[in-house]
């Protein structure tokens, strides 16, 4: 195979793209009225959802397949180009691990997972042009097994149905040589990863185009084509306005998305390469947001969720009136094709080890899961909810079996007669008439029909929760409130308010205002209704809740409303303007779940939210539960489950731009440097984590390679004597690990920790925007290669990095361990990562003290550089400025120096805090002086002898201690095992990798004797 091409993955089995018989759907949804809520848990490309919307209903749709979700979004919701791009990225990420899994089978030879490769088609005797699918061929890359499996009749029918819609020469067919006598066999290059992979690959291919302009152009073409194909796929004709545009290549896009996208892409690409002038015209065309304006009216009526139906967020807050189900039938593709992803759900519990899982295709074998699904729906909807079942039963027995199962689940299956007239009965060869039935399920009296005891389904827990008698009257009121909150936005807001009140009361805050329109107190119990609320000053008319401290500090809260970002921006801007660096007024946004919150914490959005403080609802529940466990235990448990877990961020290899690289220490040869860079790829880096930094900028390393290879290759026979200067100085090869000294974002100006004093309870669950500027502090090693190269980095250089590496330290947990004060003890450059620790600790309102050990004070003197953070740049000292900036008082900073130099002491810290000698001595004498040594913790980083002594001191005074280790590293991700340190595990000494198990270790874990 040459360069990997999209067409290699193309599939001919594409239920999503088919022209749908919307007339059938119209009938199925005939009793859907304006204002109804339709739930479509397996939405596919969203056509049923569209029909329901056209009937005036509100729709909640979801699918396991991210591609399907995306398509539904494109179909139903207006979407910006940027949002679409983001969506595609996430789809591509999801494809590899979740979706492709569904298209693998187990090799009978070696038992490993393989993808099936080819679909073999067979021609009927004597008629070369009429061919039909016959078998699936699989080849195992591991054991070399090659095998074919005959398709069942239903699969054959299905493939035919699908291929019927495909263009004549969809795939280049290849005749298999020397097979059989009567029948000819053909091979179609068939899917291994199918449509999703192909689309995602294509999009990825576009993304990897290096020229920005052309990349964006193709992204636009791709997306607009996708959109066009979908809309035309539905309407089935060329009445769509887009198709009238003069775009060759994509004008004729009609049926198949893939073919058209690919063709259009290719055509455009070729054309573009020939004549670059067309670009502008095309770009102006593809501003397709105008074209989807038609959908804007429906914007408020749809929610599309990417979700496994098993985890489908039942119960929805609004009342569901209809659920639409299209279980896999034995005949797919004509009306509503069977969704494999639904099949995949139904497959659960079926033996997956069979070579070819025919169960996927037939509902007869999946009756059990079908019933479970119905029960699940029954448990989360009320009696008036109807299930529309679109299933074409070809057998009477199946229909009856469905009836049985439905009644077992508490539903009555009724046939929809009106549809029958629409679809002509087909006759089979045997003469039997095929019965085609569409049904809908009506809830029968559940209590009478439900067999046996209540199933232990987690959804029924909600029911039992109501019936249980709670000892505390408030708690039962809470439960009632909770069940209301799941249906009613105002009740949800009310619950949030109560949670906030509980949390803030601990730190002396009082709720002074609550926007009356946002809450509904009419039915609330007296016990949980807050006291009468003051009126609020009219400066901030859009605030939902305001809390006040006796000392005058105020905290405002807004409920995040995705449709009303403008309002939030206004509030944020106003508060930022008034508040600036005083931090007397802090504003929070309350999010429903963590995923939503994290998407808002992105830098792009945060620009509009200059002082971003965010909390999410599950965190509020948990925190309130911690404070008053008896009151919030059950609700908090239940609601924290509702939150969507955030996706774990993997380690990235990314590029960062150098902002400045300035030497520190004025006289003589500077040894220390401060490197500042910015990147948007290092979200979620936590204290203690580190990055591997390439010491040469990207261009230079490439150039170096080129010189080397030119030299190696071009001094051939025809080019003698071409002189190339080669730099013979040793160059670094590996990346160098560095801890972050500081991470920040421009709206949080330097020093904000001075004045920011969040209530500790709230600080523990507060989030800010993701930072995008970072700083490391490094020492140029005598005779070192890497750090010497690093000193040459200039502003604007791009540097490759790998990160974030190392274990994440979850600092809010320390509070629950009873720690309130942390001492940072750092020797030399070891202090730098501790400053980052300090930044995080201060944010969570820990008390801090810092002990800095250096050789001479001069080496900390900052070079005046442009606009410095310090007020007087010539008197600025590294660490002291930084620690001051994160909110340490001067008396909290201690400094020891080994050499007595003439440098005047910094006036920033009291004279008593200076010490000649080792930092460990100073720290020991400090500990001896203080009386209360409880709730302390030490974090240390520095040279080995310092750490060893410090550990002894900590064990004498019985203070818990964490150490941050620094080692030579090779890979940074734990495969090379070079960065090991001695640790103890079960009294046994062993080597642990600092880059994976560390770099922050508990002092007890380390084997100090052998370190």
């Amino acid at each position, binding site marked *: 195979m040459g360069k990997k091409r999209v067409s290699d993955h193309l599939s001919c089995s594409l239920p999503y793209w088919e022209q749908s018989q919307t007339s059938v759907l119209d009938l199925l949804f005939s009793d859907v009225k304006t204002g109804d809520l339709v739930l479509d848990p397996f939405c596919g490309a969203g056509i049923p959802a569209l029909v329901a919307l056209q009937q005036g209903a509100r729709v909640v749709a979801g699918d396991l397949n991210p591609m399907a979700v995306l398509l539904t979004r494109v179909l139903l919701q207006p979407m910006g180009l940027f949002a679409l791009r983001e969506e595609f990225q996430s789809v591509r990420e999801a494809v590899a691990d979740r979706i492709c899994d569904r298209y693998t089978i187990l090799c009978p030879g070696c038992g490993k997972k393989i993808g099936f490769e080819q679909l073999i088609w067979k021609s009927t005797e004597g008629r070369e042009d009429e061919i039909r699918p016959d078998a699936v061929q699989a080849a195992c890359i591991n054991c070399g097994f090659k095998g074919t499996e005959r398709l069942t009749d239903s699969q054959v029918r299905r493939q035919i149905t699908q291929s019927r819609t495909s263009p004549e020469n969809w795939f280049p067919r290849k005749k298999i040589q020397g097979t059989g006598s009567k029948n000819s066999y053909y091979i179609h290059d068939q899917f291994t990863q199918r449509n999703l992979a192909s689309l995602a690959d294509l999009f990825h291919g576009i993304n990897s185009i290096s020229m920005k302009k052309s990349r964006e152009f193709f992204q636009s073409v791709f997306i607009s084509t996708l959109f066009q194909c979908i809309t035309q796929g539905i309407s089935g004709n060329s009445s769509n306005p887009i198709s009238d545009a003069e775009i060759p290549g994509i004008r004729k896009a009609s049926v198949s998305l893939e073919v058209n996208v690919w063709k259009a892409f290719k055509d455009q690409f070729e054309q573009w390469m020939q004549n670059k002038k067309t670009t502008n015209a095309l770009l102006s065309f593809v501003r397709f947001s105008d074209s989807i304006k038609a959908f804007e009216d429906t914007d408020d009526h749809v929610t599309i969720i990417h979700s496994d139906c098993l985890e489908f967020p039942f119960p929805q807050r609004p009342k569901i009136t209809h659920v639409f189900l299209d279980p896999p039938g034995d005949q797919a593709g004509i009306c509503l094709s069977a969704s494999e992803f639904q099949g995949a759900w139904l497959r659960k519990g079926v033996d997956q080890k069979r070579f070819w899982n025919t169960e996927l295709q037939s509902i007869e074998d999946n009756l059990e899961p079908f019933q479970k699904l119905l029960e699940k729906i029954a448990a989360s909807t009320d009696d008036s909810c109807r299930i529309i079942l679109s299933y074409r039963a070809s057998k009477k027995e199946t229909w009856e079996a469905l009836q049985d199962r439905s009644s077992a689940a508490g539903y009555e299956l009724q046939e929809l007669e009106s549809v029958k007239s629409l679809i002509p009965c087909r006759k089979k060869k045997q003469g039997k008439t095929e019965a085609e039935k569409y049904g809908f399920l009506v809830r029968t009296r559940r209590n009478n029909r439900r067999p046996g005891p209540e199933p232990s389904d987690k959804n029924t827990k909600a029911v039992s929760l109501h019936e249980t008698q709670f000892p505390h009257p408030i708690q039962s009121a809470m439960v009632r409130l909770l069940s209301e909150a799941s249906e009613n936005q105002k009740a949800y807001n009310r619950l949030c308010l109560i949670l906030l009140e509980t949390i803030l009361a601990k730190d002396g805050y009082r709720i002074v205002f609550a926007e009356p329109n946002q809450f509904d107190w009419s039915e609330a119990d007296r016990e949980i209704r807050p006291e009468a609320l003051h009126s609020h000053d009219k400066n901030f008319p859009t605030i939902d809740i305001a809390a006040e401290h006796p000392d005058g500090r105020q905290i405002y809260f807004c409920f995040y409303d995705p449709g009303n970002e403008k309002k939030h921006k206004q509030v944020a801007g106003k508060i930022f303007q008034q508040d600036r660096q005083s931090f007397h007024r802090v504003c929070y946004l309350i999010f429903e779940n963590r995923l939503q919150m994290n998407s808002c914490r992105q830098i792009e959005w945060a620009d509009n939210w200059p002082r971003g403080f965010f909390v999410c609802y599950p965190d509020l529940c948990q925190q309130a539960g911690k404070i008053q466990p008896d009151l919030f235990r059950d609700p908090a448990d239940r609601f924290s489950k509702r939150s969507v877990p955030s996706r774990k961020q993997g380690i990235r290899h990314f590029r960062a731009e150098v902002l400045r690289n300035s030497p520190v220490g004025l006289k003589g040869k500077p040894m220390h440097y401060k490197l500042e860079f910015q990147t948007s790829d290092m979200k979620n880096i936590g204290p203690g984590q580190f990055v591997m930094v390439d010491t040469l900028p990207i261009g230079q390393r490439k150039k170096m390679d080129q010189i080397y290879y030119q030299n190696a290759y071009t001094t051939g026979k025809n080019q003698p004597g071409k002189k190339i200067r080669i730099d013979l100085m040793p160059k670094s*090869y590996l990346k160098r690990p560095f801890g972050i000294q500081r991470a920040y974002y421009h709206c949080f100006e330097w020093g904000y920790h001075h004045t920011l004093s969040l209530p500790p309870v709230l600080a523990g669950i507060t989030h800010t925007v993701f930072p995008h500027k970072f700083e490391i502090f490094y020492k140029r090693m005598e005779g070192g290669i890497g750090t010497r190269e690093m000193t040459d980095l200039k502003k604007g250089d791009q540097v490759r990095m790998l990160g974030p590496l190392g274990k994440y330290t979850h600092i809010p947990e320390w509070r629950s361990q009873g720690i309130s004060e942390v001492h940072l003890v750092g020797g030399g450059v070891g202090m730098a990562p501790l400053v980052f620790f300090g930044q995080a600790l201060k944010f969570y309102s820990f008390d801090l003290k810092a002990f800095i050990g250096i050789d001479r004070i001069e080496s900390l003197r900052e070079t005046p550089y442009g606009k410095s953070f310090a007020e007087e740049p010539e008197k600025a000292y590294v660490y002291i400025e930084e620690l001051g900036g994160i909110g340490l008082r001067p008396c909290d900073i201690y400094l020891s120096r080994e050499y007595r130099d003439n440098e005047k002491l910094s006036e920033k810290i009291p004279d008593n805090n200076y010490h000649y000698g080792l930092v460990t001595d100073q720290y020991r004498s400090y500990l001896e002086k203080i009386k209360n040594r409880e709730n302390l913790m030490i974090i240390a980083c520095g040279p080995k002898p310092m750490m060893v002594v410090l550990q002894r001191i900590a064990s004498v005074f019985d203070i818990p201690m964490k150490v941050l280790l620094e080692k030579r590293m090779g890979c940074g991700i734990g495969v090379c095992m070079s960065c090991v340190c001695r640790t103890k595990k079960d009294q046994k000494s062993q080597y642990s990798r600092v880059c994976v198990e560390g770099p922050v270790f508990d002092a007890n874990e380390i084997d100090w004797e052998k370190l």
Partner: protein
Amino acid sequence: MKNRMQVKIKNLVMKSPLMTASGTSGHANEIEVLEKSGQILAGLGAFVTKGVTLKPKEGNPEFRIAETRTGILNSIGLQNEGVEFFIQNEIHHLANFELPVFVNISADSVEGFGELAAYLSDHDSAQIISGLEINVSCPNIKKGGAAFGTDPKMVEQIVKTVKKQIDPRLLVITKLTPNVTDITIPARAAIQGGTDVLSMINTVRGMAIDIDTQKPLLGNIIGGLSGPAIKPVGLFMVYDCFRSIPECRSGKIPIMGIGGISRWQDVIEYILAGASAVGIGTSWFVNPDVFREIHHGLTGYLAGKKISISDLIGKAHGQLAME
């Protein structure tokens, strides 16, 4: 469509000639922490694990790594949790890669190798494995390792023992050390012992001295040099074996070329010299995208020349064949 990258090692079909080199990608799923590990695995044809020994091994003292120009010296000392831990806790992750897996094994006696081979081929979960790479060349352990690799009789004996104990389904790969005068001598010995595949080279012995402490830098004093610095060494050894050993020439014993590959051009060079597959290790630390880049470069080269990898194997010997 024909996969130009496809190569065949004995009966095993690999979708690409690229492999990880032993010791640089962990025992199993360590590399999955990378966000783009999927792309790395997509470019691979086979996965070679880090060395496994019979008993847990704690490895060499610090320091274990030193940088050189375009290379690194390492002396890890085969740190691993032992074969039992490997079978129980790590091997099942490898199934997710959907790649042929070669397990690198190491021992300090001939019997040890036999025992290890028997253990790995008997075990059920070892079904995932496609072959064993016998490490008779590690320079960083005191007993065994390179001491075995330089002694042709020993090599022959070890390969014979492993071959006797092993499940016949599994390939036996012998990884040779470059720390010999003539690589063809141990190579012939391994073939005599019955190896299916030869892989070369392991790291080259070297050392580094810290001028401040005035002592050797590495805890183990001796380290193994890897990285682009050793590419010419490895390349010639592959070339030499292909040229001088008829079995290699005829394709009966394929060669896996390892050593200093950092660009796709290096891969082509190795293939032209006679390698059927190549292992990439050290450059992966420097550039986690290297597998993707090399795969991309290779497919471009092959498509441009309209040839496939298997046509290129040993092509640099074209003129010699005429002699």
